């Protein structure tokens, strides 16, 4: 692999002396910059809108609708959400737990599958690789999958949120390619001659040399687990196991959900009239997006590098 790729990508690929004379004209450059500025606004504007609505007085929303600058500032939506923050905090807890356990677990399991099939001397390595690859081509579909988890008694357990993404076939193939391309076979031979067992080779030679691919797949998986709401919507009906994304899903579909634990049915109707529905919804969105925005610069950098690792064809 070309070691310059990473730095070239993050720097946009230009800048060496030869390409300096081969630049686009100032006019074209200016037009493209304008285009990219407009596209950047298109990417960020929705988020700014949601932030600003979440800080607007509900009454102003009813009168003037959503605006990018709040007509009447108010932090009531957030105070309302955090008046009884039990559900939100529990949602965060579930999401963090599932993301951490899922990511670590899937890194380990992916490596445990990729290592044997990356070994040139491993018998049946092609058949074993095909077993992974075939799952990318064919699946039983939602119903048999759902039934398998139900029969195994995994409904309403955190396992149902973790297991489905533990072994992602594409990740196994990326890691296999990395192992066989970057770790010289002679290194493994030498370790064997020195008396190391396979487990020792795996833990003390392979894993330490694989930080780039580990970081990449770790990030992919963090994002997968953190953003997952689908497995929750299929398997979780217990209110105590609701992840943050699924809580957000419930809130946008039914604002009453937030109050379900707090208000009994007889007063729910009266309360509903006074709930700041629009602003609370948008505040909920911000609470849910929060962590992504905070870690985004970090994520983004490694994600881009990771795509290059992934694009190395084996």
């Amino acid at each position, binding site marked *: 692999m070309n070691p310059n790729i990473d730095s070239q990508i993050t720097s946009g690929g230009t800048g060496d002396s*030869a390409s300096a004379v081969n630049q686009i004209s100032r006019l074209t450059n200016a037009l493209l910059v304008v285009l990219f500025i407009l596209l950047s606004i298109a990417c960020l504007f929705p988020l700014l809108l949601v932030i600003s609505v979440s800080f607007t007085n509900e009454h102003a929303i009813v009168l003037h609708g959503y605006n990018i600058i709040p007509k009447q500032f108010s932090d009531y939506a957030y105070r309302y959400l955090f008046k009884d923050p039990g559900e939100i905090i529990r949602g965060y807890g579930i999401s963090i737990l599932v993301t951490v356990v899922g990511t670590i677990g899937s890194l380990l399991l992916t490596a445990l599958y990729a290592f044997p099939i990356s070994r040139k001397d491993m018998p049946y390595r092609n058949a074993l690789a095909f077993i992974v690859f075939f799952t990318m081509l064919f699946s039983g579909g939602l119903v048999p999958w759902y039934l398998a988890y139900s029969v195994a008694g995994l409904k309403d357990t955190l396992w149902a949120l973790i297991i489905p993404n533990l072994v992602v076939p594409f990740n196994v193939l990326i890691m296999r390619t990395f192992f066989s391309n970057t770790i010289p076979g002679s290194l493994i031979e030498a370790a064997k001659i020195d008396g190391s067992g396979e487990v020792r080779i795996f833990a003390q030679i392979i894993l330490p040399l694989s930080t780039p691919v580990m970081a990449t797949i770790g990030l992919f998986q963090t994002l997968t687990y953190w953003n997952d*709401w689908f497995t929750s919507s299929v398997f979780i009906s217990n209110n105590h196991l609701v992840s943050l994304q699924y809580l957000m899903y419930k809130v946008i579909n039914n604002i009453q959900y937030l109050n379900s634990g707090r208000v009994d049915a007889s007063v729910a109707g009266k309360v509903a009239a006074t709930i700041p529905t629009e602003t609370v919804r948008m505040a909920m969105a911000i609470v849910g997006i929060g962590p992504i925005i905070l870690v985004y610069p970090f994520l983004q950098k490694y994600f881009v590098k990771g795509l290059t690792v992934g694009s190395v064809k084996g």
Partner: protein
Amino acid sequence: MMSSQFLRNIVKYRALFLMLLLPLSVLIFNNYIPMFGVIVAFKNYNFADGILGSPWQGLENFKYLFQTEDAWIATRNTVLYNLLFIVMTTVVAIFLAIALNELRSTKLSRMFQSVLLFPYFLSFVVVSYLAYAFLGGNGYINKAILEPMGLSSISWYTEAKDWIFILPLVNIWKNVGYGMVVYLAGIVGIDHEYYEAAVIDGATKWQQIRRITLPLMLPVIIVMVILQVGRIFNADFGLFFQVPLNTGALYPTTNVIDTFVYRSLLISGNVGMSAAAGFYQAVIGLVLVLATNLIVRRVSRENALF
């Protein structure tokens, strides 16, 4: 002897086989057992008798499925949206990647790259909120755009035909950054000597793009397109379920096979028909991947996936 050879292999490489044990079990449970579960599609499933105990009923589920108009609409929507998405994201992402690579300021280029990739990191639940902020009754489009222009507001969540435009827009907004970064990685991997030689020969920028950049990006483009074509029968569930907020009035233009299967199973509880639809989706999906790959192999062998 075959079997003693097999045993000797297992014993000799026992450590490596032991390593495979756990991930292989996950794969068998999560992917392979459900593959055999497709027999549910040919049974009159009831929860009391389970998968194996329920009586066979041949193709009844499929007959029932294709008698519903929904199945056809969902199929049509899935394929047409996916075709549109593949063309749109590929063309736009390649254009943006080339443009980004040509920007004079690397600092700006890096900044735009970060910003355009941002939507890709959001879940579709979050995207559904962002879309709602624009499309809701008090949303930005109605109150900040249409009203000041003296136009009457539009009830987006009941206007099925508008979603033919909304969904592709949301899809490209969310995914184009990812494609752009993948293609950019392809571009910067191209050897600079090609361009140096071209400059000496007096090639214009446009000629360089057409004769060097695009042809050398072709392998990446083909891989990306095969992967997408192979999944043309699988819609992005989040896009079609979350963003329209699962609104019944929008089904004519938002229902796809995946949402159809989901709703048949979890909302109407129709296990048999849902399984039949899933099976139909999986089989045609498989045929399409194989066919696409075969075509690519015919055209240029080294670009095929397998």
